[in-house]
């Protein structure tokens, strides 16, 4: 009863707020203006170019981080894949732990937080600015990112908090503060607090507004244009019902439909690729050529590289630290096993799914090229002209739609569900950061959750530009702090890894499946 009242009041206040502003200007415009004014400085700081270049320092930061982890752990992402898959299958899971969170479940939960709009809309943005070549850098970033995930998720499990009531909380804020203390390093608490603040911003940006924004773009693309705040209100109401009202059935249905949608998306992409099998070679040619020449895009090959890395990071969140929160609930006595499992995430998310999207956009000829020179035709804003002038999720939709006319409808449903499940995941990540800062408690948690819902409306009403910039900035800010933390904690991960691998070799760590086979 109480909850219902709260829901009613929150929503009616929101509607009133919207209504009063309508008199002055269109709500969407107002929200948009205020939004870009409020977040511009932050975006500028995060994406500041390296002196004398157009290369944003943050992209270099992520790439260097992922490369350092890759080298430090001796290309763990290639060495450990077989073992990772065995862990996900449950080969090393003690049957006595049945009923706890399995490796598969932790991976699936983390994946449903990352597979989503980044794979559909983000990739479209990447190739429409960076050209086909962006795909190459995206794949490379995905492969390198596997090592970042390995590092952060190992620590996430190792330093999680296990409470007396049987629940767990983990994530960079915990491993940075505890790990630094263990190593006798100063500043752990400060970094942890900074991470938590950025995580809250990220949960409102990329984990929320970007999703609402793109979901609205998709729906309005099908039913016709209408104000974004309407979509926002509907989304906010449903998310509110789940995270505040505790209506688990909605979340449960979504969590079951999302993987199905993901598989269907990949299958549809594969069918389109098969239908155009003769062009696959050409598409890869475009990808490789564009990766190093840019094929005439604004900013040349550096432009392709920046877009590829940026979108990959935004899609798979490697180095961002969010996955460490999701993975930390797993049942295992060996933290490094969850590291092994989590490194599959960027592979599935970026190397497989994002590449599918990119290939479909390229192969269906969405990017306009000059027949005379073979170079891309650019619009006034420096973006590549697309077949029907669309960008973001609409571009992906047009690409799939050119093969199957009905696919945009399926994609619209998928986008809405992906957006929703990503929001649910990020509402949890943000909440964990929030409770890390302010402590646990019903009213504190409610404050965050209501704020989260309000931002859904703002995100749906704002234009793509400012929202996408802020989403990126907030999420990358998390990576700044997280990767600093990871650098200092690397020896701890290495110790865990070496100890585990040697025990695996001596047979101290046993396989359970197969041993008790019938």
């Amino acid at each position, binding site marked *: 009863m109480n909850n219902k009242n709260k829901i009613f009041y929150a929503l009616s206040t929101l509607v009133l707020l919207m209504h009063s502003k309508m008199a002055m200007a269109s709500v969407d415009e107002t929200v948009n203006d205020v939004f870009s004014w409020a977040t511009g400085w932050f975006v500028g700081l995060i994406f500041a170019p390296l002196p004398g270049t157009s290369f944003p320092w943050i992209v270099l930061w992520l790439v260097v981080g992922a490369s350092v982890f890759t080298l430090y752990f001796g290309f763990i992402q290639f060495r450990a894949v077989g073992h990772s898959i065995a862990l996900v299958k449950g080969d090393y899971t003690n049957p006595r732990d*049945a009923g706890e969170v399995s490796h598969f479940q932790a991976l699936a939960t983390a994946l449903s937080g990352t597979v989503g709009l980044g794979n559909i809309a983000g990739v479209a943005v990447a190739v429409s600015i960076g050209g086909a070549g962006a795909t190459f850098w995206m794949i490379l970033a995905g492969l390198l990112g596997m090592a970042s995930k390995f590092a952060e998720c190992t620590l996430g499990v190792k330093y999680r908090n296990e409470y007396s009531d049987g629940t767990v909380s983990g994530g960079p804020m915990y491993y940075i503060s505890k790990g630094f203390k263990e190593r006798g390093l100063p500043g752990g608490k400060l970094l942890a607090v900074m991470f938590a603040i950025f995580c809250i911003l990220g949960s409102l940006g990329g984990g929320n507004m970007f999703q609402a924004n793109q979901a609205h773009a998709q729906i309005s693309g099908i039913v016709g244009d209408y104000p974004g705040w309407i979509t926002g209100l509907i989304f906010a109401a449903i998310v509110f019902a789940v995270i505040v009202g505790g209506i688990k059935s909605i979340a449960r249905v979504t*969590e079951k439909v999302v993987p199905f949608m993901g598989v269907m998306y990949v299958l549809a992409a594969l069918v389109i690729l098969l239908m155009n099998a003769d062009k696959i070679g050409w598409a890869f040619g475009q990808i490789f050529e564009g990766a190093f020449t840019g094929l005439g895009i604004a900013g040349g090959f550096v432009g392709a590289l920046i877009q590829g890395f940026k979108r990959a990071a935004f899609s798979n969140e490697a180095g961002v630290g969010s996955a460490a929160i999701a993975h930390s609930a797993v049942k295992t006595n060996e933290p490094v096993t969850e590291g092994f499992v989590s490194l599959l995430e960027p592979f599935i998310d970026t190397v497989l799914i994002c590449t599918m999207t990119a290939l479909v956009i390229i192969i269906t000829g969405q990017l306009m090229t000059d027949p005379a020179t073979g170079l891309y035709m650019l619009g006034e804003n420096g973006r590549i002209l697309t077949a029907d002038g669309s960008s973001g999720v609409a571009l992906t939709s047009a690409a799939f739609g050119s093969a199957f006319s009905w696919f945009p409808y399926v994609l619209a449903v998928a986008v809405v569900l992906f957006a929703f499940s990503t929001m649910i995941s990020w509402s949890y990540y943000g909440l964990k950061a929030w409770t890390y800062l302010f402590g646990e408690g019903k009213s504190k948690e409610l404050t965050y959750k209501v704020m989260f819902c309000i931002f859904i409306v703002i995100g749906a009403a704002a234009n793509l530009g400012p929202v996408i910039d802020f989403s990126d900035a907030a999420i990358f800010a998390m990576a700044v702090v997280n990767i600093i933390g990871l650098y200092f904690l690397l020896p701890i991960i290495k110790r865990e890894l070496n100890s585990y691998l040697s025990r695996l070799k001596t047979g101290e760590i046993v396989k359970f499946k197969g041993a008790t086979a019938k």
Partner: protein
Amino acid sequence: MSNILIVGLDGSESGSRALAYAKRLASLIPDCTLELVYVIEWTPYSFQTPEENASRHKRREQEIAVATSRVIDPAIAALHSEGFTANGRVMHGDAAELLNLVAVEEKADQIVVARSSRGGITSRLFGSVTANLVMNASVPVTVVN
């Protein structure tokens, strides 16, 4: 060495039928121990929200506590008062697989289960617990109607 009978319970009326039959068998077999097994259906390959994962351990403990206090403990108390030797356990997983696993571990002579009360389309497609158990078990299985 004791003779061991595994009895599958599910807290329903069919579980009681299995137990009633197992008691009759046990009274005919000298030195017989009844091992009661309650399986909470669970799969490691499901999809869950982060919040569900975070409280999973707590939930699991609650599920085990409820099954133990409502089904296993009363059954064992009743068996003891009637002079039978009996143990019990609650497990998560696939019922057919776990009943067999316990039977192998305990070197049991037989598994006693009742025909599942549930039917319908899923059991037609994927087979019921009982059918799977009968097909795959390593020890004799008695299915009580």
